């Protein structure tokens, strides 16, 4: 599904990612954990295709395609989804209109006809209910005056409506209370299947109690320093980043 080889990335000549390798197969859930400034968010932006990041070296293959050759919207329509740590506020654009435009853009890209209004409304309502989102909220401007938790739920709603093949969750747990964390995690777990893969980026082991990963990687100073199964997350919680990175 996703194959990152010897990735080197810099921004404004500052090296952030320094030789990162990561391979995610269909149906797998990988967790990426690391301290502030280790390159976690940079990796998520690079995968989604945000400009300003310079790829100095390395390759990223996604579904047998060269990911780095695809534009941001093409990556999204090919089934890659990034749930943002800080979702953008878009004043003047209704949330439901945004969702509909996104869904129809993907359908157009895949050569399908537009989803009719009724079908869309049904889909949105059922997905919103799963995430305990009040449908009234979807009439409001996208993310404008949403609380931190509402913004994160909105990201997961977008994800579940677009049903991506490869979803990257960038610190989706930050700013969530315990109830919202549970609801968001359930939303993610519903999407788990043999066909879909996840990369869950987080500081804390807590999220991984709800979304059980198949693999856990620890990133420090731009490269993965240790990989293991779920028990690595528990070990990390106990010992902290510094000790684990040293022992690696």
């Amino acid at each position, binding site marked *: 599904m996703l194959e990152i080889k010897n990735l080197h990335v810099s921004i404004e000549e500052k090296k952030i990612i320094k030789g990162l390798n990561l391979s995610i197969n269909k149906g797998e859930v990988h967790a990426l954990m690391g301290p502030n400034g280790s390159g976690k968010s940079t990796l998520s932006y690079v995968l*989604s*295709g945000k400009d300003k990041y310079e790829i100095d070296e390395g390759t990223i293959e996604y579904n047998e395609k060269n990911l780095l050759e695809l534009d941001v*919207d093409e990556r999204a329509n090919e089934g890659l989804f990034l749930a*943002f740590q800080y979702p*953008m506020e878009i004043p*003047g*654009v209704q949330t439901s209109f*945004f969702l509909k435009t*996104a869904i129809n*853009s993907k359908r157009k890209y895949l050569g399908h006809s537009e989803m009719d209004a009724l079908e869309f409304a049904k889909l949105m309502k059922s997905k919103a209910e799963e995430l305990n989102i009040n449908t009234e909220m979807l009439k409001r401007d996208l993310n404008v005056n949403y609380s931190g938790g509402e913004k994160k739920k909105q990201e997961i709603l977008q994800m579940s409506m677009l049903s991506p093949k490869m979803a990257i969750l960038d610190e989706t747990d930050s700013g969530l209370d315990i109830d919202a964390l549970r609801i968001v995690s359930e939303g993610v777990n519903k999407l788990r299947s043999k066909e879909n893969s996840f990369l869950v980026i987080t500081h804390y082991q807590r999220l991984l109690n709800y979304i059980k990963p198949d693999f856990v990687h620890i990133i420090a100073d731009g490269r993965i320093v240790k990989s293991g199964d779920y028990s690595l997350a528990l070990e990390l919680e106990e010992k902290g980043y510094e000790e684990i990175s040293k022992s690696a």
Partner: protein
Amino acid sequence: MELTLNLDKIQSDNVSKYAKTILDKQNPYKNFKIENYKYAQLHRDITSETLLRDIDISELLRISKNISSLTSNPVDLASDLNLWKYKNDDSFFRVSSLLKRDTSSINLDLIDDKNLFLDISQINENIHFFKSSKNVINLIIMNSKANDEYPKSIFFDISNNSNLNVIHFNISNYKSFLYFESNLQDNSHLNFVSFQSDNIHTRNEFYASLNLECNFDLFGLNINNYGVNDNYSFIQHLKPSSSSREIFKSIVEKGAITNFQGKIYVDSIAQKTDGYQMSRSLLLDDISKANNKPELEIYADDVKCSHGSTVSKLDEDQIYYFKSRGIDSEMAKKILKKAFIAEIIESIKDDNLRDYSNNIIESLLT
């Protein structure tokens, strides 16, 4: 450009002297340094190779009554030219239009229909409207394909307790210089929306005088223009407890220059005035320009007045967010431009006219 104006039709020496002073001292066609006209570039002949498009008004005519044939009642405004009722320099546009043109009057109370249509580009005169009833009238003022370097004036006299909604379509003009003056008596309301698009050299002046407890809303939208397009407003609050709300938005591209200059004036006895002014410009490229100049002049101490002005470009991070959801950059930009101006379209109260305006703006957003 230079205007040839005839003072012969003025009988009184006083008026003639007054007119001469304005024409000599405040003539922006000769002197580009006059403060209220400083961005309008009237001393230059602004042209463009662009062929302006025709706009389809059949839908507007279907939902409204054409009152163009009713503009035959002459009224003499030129003889009182020197009775300027506003607290700042007289408008050169007002004075020159009254000297150049005859003025016709229309009493809106004599017409039964709710939506009225008038194409001012087909009329040579200035127009003086009267409204003295409470019933809601939506007056559509069309100005299209004008190529006239002489200013033209439109006056609104709105009596006590009366209401009027005006929608001004200023689309596809080569040269058009308009002066709008609205005199609102006690407890009256005026809602004025001005859509400006596809123009080469235009200036619109909006003067309004507000008495006791009246309310004036002025919304302007300026998109897809060429050359120089200029808006000037002067809103004076003369009596207590009146409110004005003014929002101008422009999207500027293709090397066009868009200007907004607006003043709110509050007289010393106009306590409890509530005045709001916002001008926002979206610049889409590096060769276009937006000049915004907000001004407040307040002599009362118990008032609420605010103004704001922004010039920005489309937010790259917002476009990235759209793209990250599969929406291509062209579509994202169109949606963001529409979001920027949505507030102006939504200010139209009549559903049919709002839908019509929405459709026409949609087709003009490139």
